[in-house]
């Protein structure tokens, strides 16, 4: 089975959901015209990233009666979508969230579980912490979503792998930093290294959509990628420029890679649980 993944490497308007929604709908059409099956938008693609006190003002519920999600769910009749937004739960806690929409349904909502609150980041001040990491079934197999800092930690991708995800959908609004004499910013190099590593270690597809543009002095570097289960790069978007990047993914590659390299088969999950229990108890 072949799946064409499109990475929507967009710039956003800070705090203007309506304008960002228009861009989502236009790109959904464009991606569909290019025969894409799944279109992935970056972290907080409907709102912009450094929201601070705007967080509560731009929140939406991923439901059919929501004015932003209604048109997105309609668009998902033609193409599966991953969109980034601020989710307000029934008790008005605000989460950095990503929703997987398909055939008019919300298949899955992920709440960011790691909120960086250090250095230039201040997410923990404005957002609630997500509390689950779950894989989910799609018409293209089982997948998992993680948002930016979630995959700077090794455990969430591991959990998704054990929960059956064969494709990891990663979204970011990653501020460029660490300019040295090398070809890439340090932040770009780091993210590409770990995404390639996850693809290789877990023998899964790893698709990463990162945004571009500026918010005040922050630049977002783009460079969205898709790696296959061998850790090979299938596609990469340009750095610092808007782009719709397509990658044709042959899902049979999982079969071939795992026939050669049975890392999933041999994973000692009972051992992991036993040792993890011991470590957590001892500590």
């Amino acid at each position: 089975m072949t799946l064409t993944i499109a990475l929507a490497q967009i710039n956003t308007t800070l705090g203007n959901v309506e304008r960002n929604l228009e861009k989502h709908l236009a790109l959904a059409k464009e991606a569909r015209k290019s025969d894409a099956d799944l279109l992935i938008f970056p972290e907080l693609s409907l709102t912009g990233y450094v929201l601070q006190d705007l967080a509560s003002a731009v929140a939406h519920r991923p439901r059919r009666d929501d004015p932003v999600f209604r048109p997105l769910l309609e668009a998902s009749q033609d193409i599966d979508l991953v969109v980034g937004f601020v989710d307000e739960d029934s008790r008005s806690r605000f989460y950095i969230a990503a929703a997987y929409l398909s055939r008019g349904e919300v298949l899955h909502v992920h709440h960011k579980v790691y909120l960086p609150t250090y250095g230039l980041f201040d997410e923990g001040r404005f957002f609630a912490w997500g509390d689950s990491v779950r894989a989910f079934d799609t018409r293209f197999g089982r997948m998992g979503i993680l948002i930016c800092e979630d995959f700077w930690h090794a455990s969430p991708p591991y959990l998704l792998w054990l929960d059956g995800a064969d494709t990891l959908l990663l979204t970011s609004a990653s501020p460029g930093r660490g300019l040295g004499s090398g070809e890439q910013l340090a932040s770009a190099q780091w993210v590409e290294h770990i995404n390639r590593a996850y693809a290789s270690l877990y023998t899964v597809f790893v698709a990463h959509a990162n945004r571009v543009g500026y918010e005040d002095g922050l630049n977002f570097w783009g460079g969205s990628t898709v790696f296959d289960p061998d850790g090979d790069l299938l596609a990469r978007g340009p750095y610092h420029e808007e782009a719709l990047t397509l990658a044709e993914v042959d899902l049979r590659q999982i079969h071939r890679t795992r026939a050669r390299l049975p890392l999933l088969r041999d994973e000692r999950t009972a051992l992991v649980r036993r040792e993890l229990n011991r470590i957590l108890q001892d500590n």
Partner: protein
Amino acid sequence: MIDLSINPALARKILTGFLRTEITRVNFRKAVIGLSGGIDSALSCFLAAEALGPENVLAVRMPYRTSSPDSLEHAQLVIDALGVQSLTVDITEMVEPLFSRFPEMDNLRKGNVMARARMIVLYDQSAAFRGLVVGTGNKTELLLGYSTLYGDSACALNPIGDLYKTQVRQLARAVGVPEPILAKPPSADLWVGQTDEEELGFTYEQADQLLYLLVDQRYSPEDCVAAGFDASLVRAVMERVRRNHFKRILPPIAKLGNRTIGYDFLYLRDWGT
């Protein structure tokens, strides 16, 4: 060896993108820059001309009667190299009445008055030319507080404030800033014969390496001494950084209400754009 070298092509791409985006998103398309004849403003001007097109950049030369003739000539080299729009406003007549009113005024006060007079000219041209004032302060200068508050540090946005002086030199060379500007010793040119390094008491080379460890690499002062820096230099630089922090923040507002600007009323400048 502490390596401060940067990838100039990548820096140029990010910084021109920054200027273009951050100026146009607030409905401007032009920039105003005070061109001193030095390397910092030359680099900012080169970046702005590339980002916006030279016709959309106004370079303003603002000599005082004792300013070095080299400063004017070197600023002209930038104007000629880029084809930006230009204007020369002599500030002598603006500042001399105040100098006469206070005959005891020392160089420091006079320098500050001149820097602020130049700010007034730039912000007036900002309105006349409909362009945003692009800053020219580098990271070394901002950290050391080697600038006049509401004077040369005043700007709408600053493309080079995260580049140390030695990195400014590298990028300036890469974008084609004329050689005489690259070669001369840095000077605020507020009085005859003034040079930055003499006034600061250390070289930019030394300061940059030390600041890079202290700020970027989070070394403690003791770690810096262990790494080979002179203890008195480390103390002097740390003290300058601390003492001048007020120049890098907005004035504190006394909190009374539940929501106070600066504390819990938090939005980016780019709010809604």
